């Protein structure tokens, strides 16, 4: 009988699968980050979003 060692095909398959899942998760995180930056950029360009936090608070208290 052949002993199960680290180089067994089973280990190689699992290692490959885990590496691919890691790459996908990292890619997904980077995509979320990139989209967030782009969406934030849209709001920065929007004048209504450039109201100071103090004005926003006053507006909110006045129910606007």
């Amino acid at each position, binding site marked *: *009988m*052949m*002993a*199960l060692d680290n180089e*067994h*095909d*089973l280990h190689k*398959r*699992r290692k*490959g*699968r885990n590496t*691919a*899942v890691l790459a996908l998760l990292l890619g997904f995180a980077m*995509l979320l980050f*990139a*989209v967030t*930056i*782009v*969406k934030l950029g849209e709001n920065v360009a929007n004048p209504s979003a450039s109201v100071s936090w103090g004005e926003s608070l006053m507006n909110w208290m006045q129910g606007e």
Partner: protein
Amino acid sequence: MTDISATSIPTRKAGDAEFGDYFRLLKPRVMSLVVFTAFAGIVAAGGEHPVVALASLLCIAVGAGASGALNMWFDSDIDAAMSRTQDRPIPAGAVDRGEALSLGLGLSALSVAMLALFANLLAAGLLAFTIFFYAVIYTMWLKRSTPQNIVIGGAAGAFPPMIGWAAVTGEVTTTSVLLFLVIFLWTPPHFWALALFRNADYARVGVPMLPVVAGEAATRKQIFIYTLILLPVAVAPAFTSAGGPIYLVVATWASLRFLSDARQVSNRVSGPDDAFGPEKRLFGTSIIYLFAVFGALIADALLRALIGLFGWPVWI
């Protein structure tokens, strides 16, 4: 002490799948067509920030892949009996049915939710409906019950450009409906050409494809009729805001070529040991056709962005 030996370790074909096996569950070849047509929809609609466009496109691709996994989960019994599909991950024993179902459901939910965040609710709703239509209406219901399965089920494959368009504009317009119709009318001749030379497979597993139920002659006639109806519908987008001269020339030429190949198929009667050359050629032409037509749409969008299309008639 437990004696673990290599002989007791499951082999590759016994459930411990490689990453590639899960990827094959997503039907990458179908996904490439979906990605391309959805990309054309995004570009033709006037474009989007590249990052948001890429993110939306990935969601559409993953959603299409998820519906492919659900299709493979449900159809694993007939896939095992057909030569074209018996190497798929489930019949080959590489992936369990339960895993395919979980992957399909998980990726469906993820892709729809992400598209809602990245683009808008309309695009996400259309993607959700597409997945439902392909997995439930087509795979679970129509495929095994009616020879019109791929006519109605073809709608699922026709949605991607409309989803891409909706992701950018937030609406469904005449142009996006026309792009939908191009793929919707293209699907029957595409699949019936395949069904003609794979007839024995479909007959063996009891899938009521048109050649199995209505015979070859009726199928050949239907192929020609659908290709004929497709011609004006495929040319029509040339005269929308998404069209242009490149699209007009390419769509007209490709449609005439498609029609010519369909005519050859419709005039044939297959004999014993037939190699089905014209049918295989029509199947190949149909794939090139779709890439050519939607590629022309992208080319016109680039032309519009670079030099503008002053005076181009927009009638629709």
